[in-house]
Structure formats: structure tokens, C-alpha cells
């Protein structure tokens, strides 16, 4: 009984159902990673899948991320469709070389003769009170890497559909899962998916456009609610895809509001916000009433958990930036 069937689900369950669906739909889909078998992953996203699909399709790998990605490349050459789970964001880096030099480039190097339909799932972002290396936001590294696509879900319904779309995509996809939302409130699963690389306006408004993705969307939505009480209507866009960027949706909105704020957890400098700011300013130069502002993690290592809520983009910081941008 899958999420869509049952109407509502948590993000964790929706991902689990989505993966199950992908495995049912395509016998070439294999799941591989650390503890994805009996344990079902440390977040239980693959719960029950090994029991139902066997150890050949849900593979507990040795403890080495370069090995996970590198063997996935070999499986892809053999015609498989690997879904790799990275246990926590901070542990994707030992596999970084295989991702940027092999996964991202193989299709191009082979003149299009080999496909790399690999999905790399990364539970990412902070706010769960974890120890170091467990709350990183590495999406920008991958977005800056040609050949990779990078997406992130912000709610159970997108989680259910987007994971299936990512796995079905013949291109490699970095799938960033906002881990602190895994077990948040259940939500309705839509009957049909939105195209994977399209952004979505999740709340209309005329004063300021605010863009988020993954874990920051809910923060932005509550900011919009508060702002509304002061008569400020924020238009909230859930980016969904970090690379490619759905600029038409963002630019159309900014041309109406004249103001844009981008919100993400990754460090401020050289982050996703910078790229969106640069593109929007180029595409809507004469419509902008103010420069694009960013609410992001700071240019420091992710802090000890007792400070993470000060470090992360939070309601106050978003609202403060809304005030700032209205002063222009």
C-alpha cells in the first residue's frame, strides 16, 4: 500500500514508498549504501525494502563512500540504475572524486554512448541537534559541477514523486533530502507529479518574492504568514530543482514584486543564492526595486548544535531581511 494510495504520509514514508515503486517499476534499480538493509538506513528510508526485494537489490556495502559511488558507476555501465544512499551529508566527500570526475562526466566522455542513471540520495541540512558533519548543505558543490542535476524536496508529496522521477531520469541526480523534515507532520500525496525540474509558487503575494528549497521552504512559509499579518504579502517559491534552475518561474514573479530574497542553509558565499541573484539581476534588471538579498548559513563551519538555531536561517532572520528589502 503506497503513500499515494494511503492519502497522507510523512516524508520518510513517502520516500520509502517512492523507492519501492521505483524498484517495482524497473528491475534494474538497485539500492546501495551503508546500513540500508536490515536497519533500513539510519533514517529508515529504505525500511523493509531488502526484506521484500532481496540482498541483491538492496545492498549493504562496505564502509567507503568512494567505493559506493565508484561501484555504482560500474553497475550503470552494466545496465543497472543504482540509487546510492549517503548516510549523512558530511560523508559524501570521500565519494566526491567519483561523483565529479566520473558520474558527472561519463556520459559526455563516452560521446553519449553510456548513460549514468545514478541517483545519489543525501540526507542534508541541519536542525536536528546532531554532532559535527551531520548537518552540512553540500548542494552548491554539485550544482557547480556540469553534468549533474541537483534537486531537493520540501514536503511528502514531492518526496514521493520526485524520488521516482530522479531514479527514472537517465541523467545522474543528486537528491537532497531535508532530514529534519523526515518525520515531520504527514501530508497529502498529490495524485500526479509536477515535472521534476520545475519550481512551484507555494504562496502567491505581490510585495516580495522569497525563494527557498528543501528545509527552508517551511521557514519561509511561516515568515510569509507572519508578514501577512503586517499586511506584507510574500510570494513564496519552492525551487525544487537547484540545477537546472527554473528561472522563468522566478523571474516572472520578481518582475511583479520587484524584490527577491533567497533562503538556504548552505554558507552564504558562493552559494545558490549568489547564482540566483546574478541571473535575476541580469534577467529583470529594470524591474528590481532592490538588490537581491540572501538569508543563509554564515561563512563558518556548521556550529555545535546548541548554536545551530542562531546559525540557520530562521523566522526572525527572514522577517528582518524582508524589512531590509522593503526599505530600498
Amino acid at each position, binding site marked *: 500500500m503506497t503513500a499515494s494510495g494511503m492519502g497522507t504520509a510523512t516524508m520518510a514514508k513517502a520516500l520509502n514508498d517512492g523507492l519501492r515503486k521505483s524498484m517495482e517499476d524497473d528491475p534494474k534499480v538497485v539500492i546501495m549504501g*551503508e*546500513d540500508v*538493509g*536490515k*536497519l*533500513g538506513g*539510519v533514517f529508515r528510508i529504505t525500511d523493509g525494502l531488502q526484506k521484500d526485494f532481496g540482498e541483491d537489490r538492496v545492498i*549493504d*556495502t*562496505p*564502509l*567507503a563512500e*568512494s*567505493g559506493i559511488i565508484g561501484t555504482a558507476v560500474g553497475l550503470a555501465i552494466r545496465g543497472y540504475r543504482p540509487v546510492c544512499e549517503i548516510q549523512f551529508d*558530511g*560523508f559524501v566527500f*570521500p565519494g566526491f572524486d567519483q561523483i565529479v570526475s566520473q558520474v558527472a562526466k561519463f556520459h559526455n566522455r563516452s560521446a553519449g554512448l553510456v548513460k549514468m542513471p545514478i541517483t545519489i540520495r543525501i540526507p542534508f541540512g541541519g536542525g536536528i*541537534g*546532531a*554532532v*559535527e*558533519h*551531520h548537518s552540512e548543505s553540500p548542494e552548491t558543490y554539485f550544482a557547480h559541477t556540469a553534468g549533474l542535476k541537483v534537486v531537493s524536496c520540501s514536503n511528502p508529496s514531492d518526496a514521493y514523486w520526485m524520488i521516482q522521477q530522479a531514479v527514472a531520469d537517465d541523467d545522474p541526480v543528486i537528491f537532497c533530502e531535508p532530514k529534519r523534515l523526515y518525520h515531520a507532520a504527514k501530508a497529502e500525496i498529490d495524485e500526479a507529479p509536477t515535472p521534476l525540474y520545475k519550481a512551484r509558487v507555494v504562496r502567491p503575494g505581490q510585495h516580495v518574492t522569497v525563494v527557498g528549497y528543501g528545509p527552508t521552504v517551511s521557514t519561509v512559509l511561516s515568515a510569509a504568514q507572519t508578514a501577512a499579518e503586517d499586511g506584507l504579502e510574500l510570494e513564496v517559491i519552492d525551487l525544487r530543482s537547484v540545477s537546472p534552475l527554473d528561472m522563468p518561474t522566478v523571474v516572472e514573479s520578481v518582475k511583479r514584486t520587484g524584490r527577491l530574497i533567497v533562503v538556504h542553509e548552505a554558507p*552564504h*558565499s558562493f552559494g545558490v543564492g549568489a547564482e540566483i541573484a546574478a541571473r535575476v539581476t541580469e534577467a529583470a534588471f529594470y524591474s528590481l526595486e532592490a538588490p537581491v538579498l540572501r538569508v543563509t548559513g*554564515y*561563512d*563558518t*563551519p556548521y*556550529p*555545535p*548544535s*546548541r*548554536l*545551530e538555531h*542562531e*546559525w540557520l536561517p530562521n523566522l*526572525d*532572520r527572514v522577517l*528582518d531581511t524582508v524589512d531590509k528589502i522593503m526599505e530600498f
Partner: protein
Amino acid sequence: MSEHVHAVHPEPDMVQLLTPEGQRVEHPDYKLDISEDEIASLYRDLVLVRRIDTEAIALQRQGELGLWASLLGQEAAQIGAGRALKKQDMSFPTYREHGVAWCRDVDPLVLLGLYRGTNLGGWDPKSNNFNLYTIVIGAQTLHATGYAMGVVRDGAVGTGDPDRDTAVLAFFGDGASSQGDVNESFVWAGAGNLPVVFFCQNNQWAISEPVERQSRVPLYQRSAGFGFPGVRVDGNDVLACLAVTRKALDDARSAQGPTFIEAYTYRMNPHTTNDDPRRYRLGSEAETWKLKDPIERVRAYLTREAKIDPSFFADVDAEAKQLAEHVRKGCRELPDPTPESLFDNVHVTMPDELRTQRDEFTDFVNEVSA
């Protein structure tokens, strides 16, 4: 087939000097001349670090710690290895070596910040020659190896001066043995004949994965192909762990090169306080390992063989109580970091752009709290 190195060796005996029943046994290669007072002192170590662990778990349950990685069952491996270190030796732990920290005279409270979330470790590796806990699996083995390169360059090996010659002890787990970094550290150590000892606590599990997922042959065999010896020791036997590690460190200090030690033990508790082992292993497994408890066998020896005065055990228990109180109280009193400190120590010299970020942040915080 002379040119074949066979993969499948007959499983050799582990080095053992004290049986689970508390009998001392001899081993041809590892004589340990140790007094009963010294054994009693090891017993004290074992009991106290287990007590620290018990308290930390309780503190996590009470919400005082965000997480804890328990050493239960691995006390002998850690105390044996830790007590083999000389003052000048350097040690590189994972996140579980609370027993080694104890041997390095690191106040248990120092370890709690990382798990409470008040800091990222934040102690000085040099003050007790005990490196920061490293969570990225295997990364510290390369740090240990590089440190050993420094030791060689400082002329601190093979001089014969017992206070100068220095060894490095790197800790890691059975799962870590699969990481590229760990194997690269073997390449460096072997090719460079470096004064580093690799101490692998094979506690049979890497979270939910049994050691068979990492290797079909005993882990201690890994090092030979990199050019240095490997030995398996009963990781629940503090005397054997002490003797084997002492010899390996002596070899390292006297420029004899690296050794790989596989301490064969068992993780009695969940991987961390977040883990649920019922999903992947049988409780009966822990039951059989309970019979090999690292503390019981020492107590049995001290009672039966050494006929030690019972008051000794009472004293140790009393000391454990005090230590527990120290940990409980100290944990709650660990200072919370100030928001401004977010920007400290990112660099030795803070760039202007970061200073600007900090100042805006501080203004904002004051504004909000105002």
C-alpha cells in the same frame, strides 16, 4: 604454489594472557611482567571508565547530551592500549575512545561538549597527547601517519632515549578498515616504515553491518600486504591488550616500524544512543559475549588468585560513585557557547568580510533580544 599468497589462512589463536575465567596464561611472544597492584590499578581503570560510560548514557536519556557512543564491552581494549602509551606518545581516537582519554588524563567532562553540542571537541590535542575525536570514519589514521612523519623528522625515534623516542597510536574500527583513507595510511606507514601503531577495535559491527560485510578474512591479516606485521589480540583481555600494544609501541619507538593490532571484542551496547540493534542482531549474541566480560575476569583473578583485600573493590566502587557525581554535575554546568562565538576560530586571522558578517549578526541578535 610458491608464488601464491593464500587468502584463506587457518584462524590463529588470539593473544590471550587472562582467560575469561580469570586464569593467567603464558604466551611465548608476549611476556608481561606486571605486579598485582598494577593489575588492580587496571581493574580500577576498567570500572571507572565503564562508570563514565553509564553516566553519559543516562545523561543522554535525560536530554543533557544529544548523543553518546558507548564503549561498553571495549574497556579492556581501550585501557590496555591506553596504558601502553608513554607520556610523549601521541594518540588519535575515533569518537568512542573514552577509555583511552581516561588513560591520557583527559577529564571526562572535556569529552562531553561534543556530545552535548556546546562545542566541536575544542580541546588541545597537545595538552594530553590525545587528538580531537574524529567522526569522519578513517580520516584520523592519515593524521596519525602524518604526525609520525613529523616525529621521524624531529629525530624522535630510535635514539634509545626512553623519554625522547615517540610512537603514535591510531584507533579505528572494523568498518573503518574498508575506507580508502585507512588503507592509504597503511601504504604510507609501510612504505615509510613509520612509528605508528594501528589499533583496530573489531567490535564485530559497523552500526548494523557485521564485520563479514567488510572482509571474509581476519582483519589483522590486512597489514602484511602493506609491509608490516598484524596481530590479533583478545580485546576483552586487558593484560593481553597491554602487552601487545606495549610491544608494538616499543617497536615503533625503536624505529622498527608499524604494527597492526586487531583487538577482537564486542560492542555490547547500541552503536550510539540513536541506534536500535534489535533490527539487525540477536540479543543472544551479547549474552555469549557477556561471559567474556573484560572486567569480570580481572575481578575474578584479583579475588581468587591475588587474594586481594575485598575493601579494594569497595574503594573502587566508592571512587566510581564520586566520578559519576562529577560527570553528572559537571555536564549540567558545561557553559553554553555564546552566539557571537559562532565566528570565532574560523581562521587564525579573521577576514574583513567575515567580521562584517559577525557584526551584522551581533546587531541583529541584540535587536531581536531587545
